[in-house]
């Protein structure tokens, strides 16, 4: 006698019903057919192999998520919409204003803590003006064609004087704290302005 094997659709239907509905929910006629199919499967290695393959395939299909959108996709989409973008811009500008004021206050505090006598005393502006390189450049600009000579030691001296005086000034009471506070305020100010116009340009470009 020729055995009738289960076809692809019967196997898929059987597996779908087993995956989604408990046996009691399967309608009577269908339940009997499933029982028949199961009896056939118990004695037919060919169909059993097909069932195993479909089961494996279904498992892989359940795992086959290929969609990889960027992690910040939701923010990107939300703030590309004009009303939300306008709101965020306003909120960020308000925040930036607050931190700009905080930066000014901390800058004033920091400057008040510096030892200005020490700085002015050590900073030789006259030395800067006497720089050979600057003189040579001026000569070139005013018509002379002589190549500039560059005296690195003489150029560097006033700069190092200035940095030394800042270091000494920072060593005075409270000025280091003032410097740290100022730096923090400026960084937060930059952060609050960062990404203000995120993705806003995409929807304004010309259609293809």
């Amino acid at each position, binding site marked *: 006698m020729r055995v009738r094997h289960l076809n692809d659709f019967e196997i898929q239907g059987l597996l779908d019903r087993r995956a989604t509905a408990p046996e009691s929910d399967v309608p009577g006629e269908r339940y009997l057919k499933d029982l028949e199919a199961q009896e056939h499967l118990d004695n037919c290695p060919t169909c059993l192999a097909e069932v195993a393959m479909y089961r494996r*395939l279904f498992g892989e*299909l359940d795992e086959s998520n290929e969609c990889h959108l960027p992690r910040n996709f939701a923010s990107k989409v939300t703030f590309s*919409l004009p009303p939300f973008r306008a709101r965020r811009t306003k909120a960020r500008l308000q925040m930036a204003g607050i931190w700009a004021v905080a930066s000014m206050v901390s800058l004033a505090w920091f400057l008040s803590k510096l030892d200005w006598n020490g700085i002015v005393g050590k900073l030789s502006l006259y030395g800067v003006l006497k720089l050979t390189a600057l003189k040579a450049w001026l000569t070139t600009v005013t018509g002379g064609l002589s190549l500039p000579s560059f005296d690195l030691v003489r150029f560097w001296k006033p700069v190092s004087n200035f940095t030394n005086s800042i270091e000494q000034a920072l060593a005075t009471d409270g000025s280091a704290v003032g410097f740290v506070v100022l730096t923090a305020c400026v960084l937060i100010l930059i952060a609050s302005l960062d990404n203000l116009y995120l993705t806003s340009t995409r929807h304004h470009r010309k259609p293809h």
Partner: protein
Amino acid sequence: MLQIEICNFCGLNSVYYNMGNHVTESARQHVAQILAGDPNAFKLLVKNHERLVGQVVFRMIINEADREDLCQDIFVKIYRNLSGFRFDSKLSTWIARIAFTTCLNYIEKKKLPLYEDTSPEGQTIDDCAAVNSTNPESWTGGRQASIKVCEEIDQLPVIYGTILSLFHLQDMSYAEISDILRMPSGTVKSYLFRARKMLKERLQVRYSMEELCA
């Protein structure tokens, strides 16, 4: 009838007023929040549905460069049309329908095939077998099996891939899929069965039977 489900927006269990297919006080509140201009409510909607939209788009659109832009366009459309959502279906079904229609328009504009096999240069299953019989690749070895399945799904007709994604990855019923694709449930079921049969045959040809069953 009262029913407890997971909220589409906040992910928490909420009491839903289930009137047949119909939605939910909680969803109405969230939609109202979005319409009132709350960016966080919309961001949450995007987060909760980006996977669904992504799966439809990634399955239907072959051109990788356009996929993310298209996902973004879909959410912009969703935002613009949200005031017209009448809660006569699940929000996810409505969103998936917009995603499907947008992709369909893209496909029509680019004159790409929707129901045809998208194998490169009209490659048939036999061609595929001929190529791979010289260089058989293990089903289980090397790359993950699901990646191989994804590659094969990409070769199926676009509509088959979409139905496979909605059924297997989004756990949608035939009724929901038929609502999204605007085709009868019977057709969806038939396409799903044909898609899986075709996929199985392609995998059988590309990889040996033993490797598939391993």
